[in-house]
C-alpha cells in the first residue's frame, strides 16, 4: 500500500469519456456523419464549381435529372443542385448549431438561476412564461422589419441576416430548456451532497458549477439535440416567409420549400435537402446520446 504514485495518478477523465464515447456505435456514426457533412460544406464549394451558364442555356437545362454534368440535377432555373446544396449546408448547419448554442446557454442560465435562487424563481419563470406566450411568427416579423436594414448596414446583408436569424431563433427557443433545467435543479439542490458542500462553506457559484451543472447535463443534452433540428426547420420557415435570407441565397430549408411545388414531378428536389436535414438531426441526436452516456460515470465502463 506504499505505492501511492500508481494508485493516485488519475487516468484522465477525458480519456475515460472518449473511450466510452467510442464504444457507443450510434454516437460514432453520428460523429462521422456530421464531420463528413461539415467538411463537405466547408470545402465542397471550392472543389465543385458549377459551370457558368448563360440565361438561355440555363433555361434549356432546367429540371434535369442526375447526370455526370449535374450530379444532383438542376432546379427550375437550371442551377446546379449540388453546388446549391453545399452552399446551403453552410448556412443551415451554422444556423442550427449557433442558434441551439444560444438557446441552451441562455436556457440553462435562466433555469439554474431560477432553480437555485429562490428569490429569482418567480420573476425568471414569469419571464419564461411570457416568452412562451409570445406568438413566434409575428415577433420574428417585427424583429426582422425593425432590425434587418440596420444590421445589414453595419455588417453586410448576408452576415446581418445570419446574425438576426440566429439571434431570433435562439431568443425564442430557450424556454423549454429553462423549464427542464429549473425542475432538475430544484430536486438536485435538496440532495445531501449539496448540503454537504454547503456545510463545508462552499459558495453558491462553486456548488452550481461542481454539483448542479454536471448533474443536469443529461436533460440539457436531450434539449440541445432536439434544438438543432428545430432551429434548422425554423430557419427554413422564416426563409419561406421571406423573412430570412435573400431569395437567391440557398439554405436547406429554402431548397426544400422551393422543391415542394415540383414534388410530384421531380421528387428528388425535395429528397436531397430533406435527407441532409434528417442526417444532420439524426447524427446530432446520436452524438448527444453518446455524450450523455459517456459523461455519466455510472454508465461508463458498463
Amino acid at each position, binding site marked *: 500500500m506504499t505505492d*501511492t504514485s500508481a*494508485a493516485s495518478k*488519475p487516468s484522465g477523465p477525458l480519456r475515460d469519456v472518449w473511450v466510452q464515447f467510442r464504444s457507443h456505435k450510434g454516437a460514432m456514426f453520428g460523429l462521422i456523419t456530421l464531420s463528413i457533412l461539415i467538411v463537405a460544406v466547408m470545402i465542397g464549394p471550392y472543389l465543385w464549381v458549377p459551370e457558368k451558364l448563360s440565361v438561355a442555356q440555363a433555361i434549356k437545362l432546367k429540371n434535369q435529372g442526375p447526370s455526370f454534368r449535374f450530379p444532383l440535377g438542376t432546379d427550375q432555373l437550371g442551377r446546379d443542385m449540388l453546388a446549391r446544396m453545399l452552399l446551403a449546408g453552410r448556412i443551415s448547419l451554422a444556423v442550427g448549431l449557433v442558434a441551439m448554442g444560444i438557446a441552451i446557454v441562455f436556457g440553462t442560465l435562466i433555469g439554474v438561476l431560477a432553480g437555485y435562487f429562490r428569490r429569482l424563481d418567480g420573476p425568471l419563470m414569469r419571464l419564461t412564461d411570457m416568452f412562451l406566450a409570445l406568438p413566434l411568427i409575428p415577433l420574428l416579423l417585427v424583429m426582422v422589419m425593425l432590425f434587418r436594414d440596420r444590421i445589414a448596414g453595419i455588417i453586410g446583408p448576408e452576415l446581418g441576416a445570419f446574425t438576426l436569424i440566429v439571434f431570433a431563433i435562439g431568443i425564442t427557443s430557450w424556454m423549454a430548456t429553462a423549464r427542464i433545467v429549473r425542475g432538475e435543479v430544484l430536486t438536485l439542490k435538496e440532495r445531501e451532497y449539496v*448540503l454537504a458542500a454547503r456545510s463545508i462553506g462552499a459558495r453558491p457559484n462553486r456548488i452550481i458549477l461542481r454539483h448542479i451543472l*454536471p448533474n443536469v447535463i443529461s436533460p440539457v443534452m436531450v434539449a440541445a439535440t432536439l434544438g438543432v433540428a428545430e432551429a434548422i426547420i425554423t430557419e427554413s420557415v422564416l426563409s419561406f416567409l421571406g423573412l430570412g435570407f435573400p431569395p437567391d441565397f440557398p439554405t436547406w430549408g429554402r431548397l426544400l420549400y422551393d422543391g415542394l411545388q415540383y414534388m410530384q414531378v421531380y421528387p428528388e428536389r425535395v429528397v436531397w435537402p430533406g435527407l441532409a436535414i434528417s442526417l444532420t438531426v439524426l447524427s446530432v441526436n446520436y452524438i448527444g446520446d453518446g455524450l450523455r452516456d459517456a*459523461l455519466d460515470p455510472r454508465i461508463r465502463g458498463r
Partner: protein
Amino acid sequence: MSPALVQVRDLKMHFPIYTGLLRRRTGAVKAVDGVSFDIRAGETLGLVGESGCGKSTVGRALLRLYEPTAGSVVIGGEDIATLSPAALRAKRPMMQMVFQDPQASLNPRMTVQAIISEPLDEQSDWDRDRKQTRVLELMDQVGLNRRFANRYPHEFSGGQRQRIGIARALALSPKFIVCDEPIAALDVSIQAQVVNLLEDLQDNLGLTYLFISHDLSMVRHIADRVAVMYLGRIAELSPRDALYARPLHPYAEALLSAVPEPDPSREGARQRIILQGDVPSPANPPKGCNFCTRCPKVFDRCRVEKPDLVEVEPGRLVACHLYPAITHPSPDQPGGTQATKPTQQGEVQ
C-alpha cells in the same frame, strides 16, 4: 470534567406554511421548538426520538444549514446562529456533518479523490500534491484502500460510501461532528464497523459528536449522554447508563421499553408500554406538555402548562411535571450548570 464545546439555548426552527391564492402565511411547522443542551468537549451526545420529532432538524440548524428561527448555538465561543456569512464560512472547518444516506450524500459524478478533497479546495490554499497526500492519509484513517481514490461512488458498497462521507467530514480536522443517522441506511453487519470507526476516530482525534439516531441500542453503545426528543422538544437528557437503567420521563420510559432484550429469559419479563394514538402535528402542538395527548401518567396540569427542562436529579434533566426541580444555589439555564456540576454533586451526596 471538560467544559462545554457546544451550547444550545432555546433553539427554535419553524418552517412557515403558506396557503391560499395569496400565499399568505397561515402557520408554521414547529419542527424544533425551544431546545437547550450542552455538549462537552470529547463526549458523544446521543439524540434519539421517533421519526419526525425534529432530530435531524436540530443537527442541521446546529451547523446553520437551516437559518434558525430563534435561539443561540454557541460552538467554541461564537454564536453560530448570528454569525455573518464570511465569519460563518471561516468557522465551517470546525464543525462538520456525516449524512444519513451515503448514496445521496456523494456526488455521483465526482471521484472519491475529488469528494474528499472538496473541503480542502474550498477552505485551504494547498497545492495539488499536499491535498493528494492529505486525501490518501484520510482514506487510510477511515480504512479505505488507497487504490480506490479514482473510483466513483457507485462502485462502492454502502459501508464504504459512508467511510468516504466520514473522510470528507474529517478533511478539515473538525472538533465537532454532527452524525445524522450515519448508520440508518446501512446493513446491520456494517453498522457495527462504522460505529467502531467513529469511536476510534473520536479516541484518536479528540472529536465531539452529536449522534442522531433512532437505533436505541446503537446509541447506548456509543453515547455518553442521551437526549430523548418528542415533537420538537427534549423530554429527557440523562447520562446513558442512568437513562437506560431507569428512564424518568414517561415518553423515555415508553421508548426504551421497546428495546428488545437479547437474553430470552429476561425478554419474556419485559414490560412494553404501548402508547395510544398518534403524534400530534408539529404545526399544531397541544397547548400544555407536548406529550399530554398520549402520556399514560397525564394529569390536569399537563394540559395547560408546558413543563421546562429542569435538573431533577444530579446530571439528569427532565421536562415533566411529575418531577420537581432540585434547587440549586445558583439557578441557571438548564445545562448551564454542567460545568460546575461535579462540586455540587459532591455537596449533595
